[in-house]
């Protein structure tokens, strides 16, 4: 029986790789430049036409190669070529397709044509879809059930191949946005812009209906708005002037897609094995997905066919001093492999980072005090404990805004009346978002003065950028107006001391939120307290996600929490959230507050097609003034991201717009191995102590048993 007690220990020792006992990675990884990270939620889609979430882009942005990308180091965010030899050239045409000058007013421009020249020698990752047999014919394009019997992953195919990326592949992907079997989230939006895309979807549907079993080769169906000119050049034709279109060209929606891959996955029996384009990408980016187990780990491996991209030679001020230009000119990517492990819980994730098994980490609220200390000047630094481990901190303001919206259609808080405006303004003063950030976000955020976050054109720093309806500029910093002032506005709105002038009943404001449970109670209690300052009653209507979305769509709310992450770094992507034509109610847009102001809408139309210059800034200033006066949102805050990284990780710089950052990172694997060894030596005395205790117990027990038997 004794062997049973020793079994776990024996098994444990047999499983040890001769290295550290708590190392979750194989011994073969030792010394290799591998970047270790984690993901908390499995990606839903890996098809570049469908994926639109951050947890999907973290993989896709490394695998696919859209035409453009954001400069890794420069700020403000700047688009630069990725797969192209230069930035796209734009030509404007009138309604009869006659060329217009580059400075033609937006009203005259009927079409914009983007001509895109690809770099030569871009090649796809090794993929069985490109494999050729001895006769030079595709090897895996006519697979039978027998061929697929033992195939469960792409690695199970014996052969793979590659080919050069062509302009036609980029056109093919644009056409896929309208494919009847694909739910591209931007299909509706792009159908409004790309010429012919709306009708193209109907054409494909008809073609599919006519031959439901046949593979739908999109090359056979021309699209006016996307055409290949030659092997390395293609054109995209969009309606009107849409300067923001170039930003979409930096997203995986516009990455190349080889028809071979589409045809390969369309074969019978592939879907049953989870072999789909939505699961096994076929890209030309710096990495390819070599292991795909979203329940455990996902591994990106350097694409051996990737070339022609180099670490940037210039950045913003301070980058050289920070060592971010040491690798200037080196071919990318700098690390061999990226291993993402699934870690749903924050405690194991955090501890693995501290043990050196993750190279970088965010900071959860639970670990914040252990990781970060804020000095008297308000500057955040790592604690001494982190410092001793060589961990450094970088912070950046996210290109996001988290706000509370008033429903413009609500008879109490909504609408354009002076009464409602003053009521909203009073509430805006009373809700102290600085306090909220301090209590609930550990200071990780800045109180918003408008929808536009820092780093986006149109944002103004300092006195010029404050919301004068809520703040005063005092001693070089914004200071929230006093609660007395808020009460004065409230009285002028017809609610002296929070009571309705006519009915003498307290004013009740209803908050619709998905925040439920114990975890959110403190936040909601804090919010009630803010309303208490004005003697207003806040009633929280907690609801599930579905009902909340439904209420928002129908306009059955009064006050609600919402947020927005930028698609691209342009003020249009934030200001459109308050454009009348984007109202949720009736129009199904993104304006959840249903705000409507004709003057604002007019200025928006004027601003959206302009280049970033002083004239555009002036219009944005005017628009923000209207918004601040009307106060359809409580402007909330722009979150600040804190990232910790170990000393062996180089070239890490937060870039809130780009997702393809892994190719720039460098790892000193020898230093990591050495430090891991120092930090993770197994502590053996408890094993010895436990062994002795167990032996002593067995001896004592045996003695007691014998005495008992003898006594009988």
């Amino acid at each position, binding site marked *: 029986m004794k062997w049973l007690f020793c079994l776990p220990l024996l098994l*444990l020792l047999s499983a040890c790789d001769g290295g550290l006992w708590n190392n*979750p990675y194989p011994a073969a990884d030792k010394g290799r430049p591998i970047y270790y990270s984690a993901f908390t939620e499995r990606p839903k889609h890996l098809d570049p036409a469908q994926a639109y979430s951050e947890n999907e882009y973290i993989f896709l942005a490394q695998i696919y190669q859209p035409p453009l990308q954001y400069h890794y180091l420069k700020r403000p965010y700047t688009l630069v070529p990725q797969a192209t030899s230069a930035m796209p050239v734009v030509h404007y045409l009138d309604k009869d397709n006659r060329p217009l000058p580059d400075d033609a007013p937006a009203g005259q421009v009927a079409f914009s044509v983007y001509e895109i020249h690809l770099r030569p020698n871009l090649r796809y990752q090794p993929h069985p879809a490109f494999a050729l047999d001895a006769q030079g014919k595709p090897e895996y394009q006519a697979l039978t059930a027998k061929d697929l019997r033992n195939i469960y992953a792409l690695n199970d195919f014996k052969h793979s191949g590659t080919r050069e990326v062509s302009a036609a592949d980029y056109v093919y992907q644009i056409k896929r946005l309208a494919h009847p079997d694909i739910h591209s989230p931007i299909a509706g939006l792009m159908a409004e812009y790309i010429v012919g895309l709306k009708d193209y979807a109907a054409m494909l549907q008809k073609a599919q209906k006519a031959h439901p079993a046949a593979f739908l080769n999109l090359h056979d169906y021309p699209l006016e708005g996307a055409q290949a000119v030659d092997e390395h050049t293609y054109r995209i034709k969009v309606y009107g002037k849409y300067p923001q279109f170039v930003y979409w060209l930096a997203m995986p929606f516009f990455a190349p897609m080889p028809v071979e891959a589409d045809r390969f996955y369309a074969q019978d029996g592939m879907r049953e094995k*989870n072999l789909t384009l939505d699961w096994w990408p076929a890209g030309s980016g710096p990495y390819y997905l070599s292991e795909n187990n979203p329940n455990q780990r996902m591994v990106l491996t350097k694409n051996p066919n990737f070339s022609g991209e180099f670490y940037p030679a210039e950045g913003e001020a301070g980058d050289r001093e920070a060592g971010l230009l040491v690798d200037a000119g080196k071919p990318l990517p700098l690390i061999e492999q990226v291993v993402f*492990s699934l870690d749903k819980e924050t405690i*194991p*994730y955090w501890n693995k980072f*501290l043990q050196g098994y993750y190279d970088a980490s965010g900071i959860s609220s639970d670990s914040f005090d252990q990781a970060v200390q804020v000095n008297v000047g308000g500057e955040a630094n790592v604690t001494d404990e982190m410092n001793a481990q060589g961990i450094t901190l970088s912070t950046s303001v996210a290109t996001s805004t988290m706000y509370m919206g008033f429903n413009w259609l609500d008879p109490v808080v909504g609408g354009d009346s002076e009464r409602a405006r003053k009521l909203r303004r009073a509430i805006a003063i009373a809700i102290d978002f600085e306090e909220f950030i301090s209590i609930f976000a550990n200071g990780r955020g800045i109180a918003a003065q408008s929808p536009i976050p820092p780093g986006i054109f149109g944002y103004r720093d300092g006195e010029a950028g404050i919301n004068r309806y809520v703040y005063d500029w005092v001693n070089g910093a914004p200071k929230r107006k006093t609660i007395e002032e808020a009460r004065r506005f409230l009285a002028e709105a017809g609610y002296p001391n929070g009571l309705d002038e006519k009915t003498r009943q307290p004013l009740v404001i209803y908050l619709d939120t998905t925040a439920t449970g114990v975890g959110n109670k403190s936040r909601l209690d804090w919010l009630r307290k803010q309303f208490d300052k004005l003697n207003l009653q806040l009633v929280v209507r907690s609801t599930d996600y579905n009902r909340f979305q439904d209420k928002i769509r129908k306009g059955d709310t009064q006050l609600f929490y919402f947020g927005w992450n930028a698609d691209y770094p342009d003020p249009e992507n934030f200001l459109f959230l308050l454009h009348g034509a984007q109202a949720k109610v009736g129009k199904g847009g993104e304006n959840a507050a249903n705000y409507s102001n004709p003057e604002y809408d007019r200025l928006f139309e004027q601003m959206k097609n302009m280049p970033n210059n002083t004239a555009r800034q002036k219009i944005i200033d005017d628009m923000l003034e209207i918004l601040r006066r009307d106060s359809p949102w409580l402007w909330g805050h722009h979150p600040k991201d804190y990232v910790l990284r170990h000393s062996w990780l180089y070239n890490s710089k937060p870039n809130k717009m780009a997702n393809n950052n892994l190719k720039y990172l460098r790892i000193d694997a020898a230093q990591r191995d050495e430090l891991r060894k120092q930090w993770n030596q197994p502590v053996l005395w408890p094993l010895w102590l436990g062994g002795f205790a167990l032996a002593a117990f067995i001896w004592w027990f045996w003695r007691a048993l014998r005495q008992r038997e003898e006594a009988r």
Partner: protein
Amino acid sequence: MIAYLLRRILYAIPILIGVNLLTFALFFVVNTPDDMARMQLGIKRVTPEAIAKWKQQHGYDKPLLFDARAEGASKLTDTIFFEKSASMFVFDFGYSDDGRNIAREIQTRMMPSLAIALPTFFVGLFIYITFALLMTLFRATALDIAGVALCVLLMSVSGLFYIIGGQFVASKLWHWVPISGYAGGMDSIKFVVLPILIGVIGSVGASSRWYRTIFLEEIGKDYVRTARAKGLSELRVLFRHVLKNAMIPILTGVVVVIPLLFMGSLLTESFFGIPGLGSYTIDAINAQDFGVVRAMVFLGSVLYIAGLILTDISYTIVDPRVRLQ
């Protein structure tokens, strides 16, 4: 016995239909097909056309239970309920709403769940029974009282505490095993040792007390007195005679859970990063993925019924007087 088993299997069919209907009703009371589409399509830029297209493609554009506009049997068969449920009776689970093959997913996730559940179950059973027998052996002594007190103490601590405390001590403080993660084959051992240990310790209190009660009831019976009178040692009396005669109540509680071991444990798998089935259903409920929810509830029901049948069969093995008719 075969007739009995066939009868039990036939009884299972209406039960499974009922479970299916109940799952369907509960799911669609909370979620509409539109909600499901929105959940899959995301928050940003979702158009009504995209929702309609998603529903049509996933078969959620039909009436839920009854199609009044259809003719004949189609009134019942041309519905979401029929189309999503009928295939499950031949164990064709179809696809999740994000397009993955559910059967394949279950196959992949089952092994990691079993890698923890089976050792936890069998090692645990051995330890609980041994501990309970020893407490019975030393009944009414200080050792028994200390054992019972220890059981009560262990029962009173939350399972989450064992997990977090175990991770803190064994992984963070002493660096014995990885704090979370998983690997296939022999490499899995170092990842599953701690969850197994915690799983066993977490249930020691309740299980050992339960078995102790069973054994104490047995120990007063005549056959035990006879065995002692024959001069058998106390250990032999307990492990040979008392244990054998206490098997019926033990099997009642034990055999029924064996098939359910496939379903894994949500908390353990989540904290230890084990890619098992434990979180599959919960993730599916959160993602409003009806395909996965119905498949997992159906599978759980089938396994539970199988567990009950196995329990009945096990009675006949341990007690020859029991006959299944």
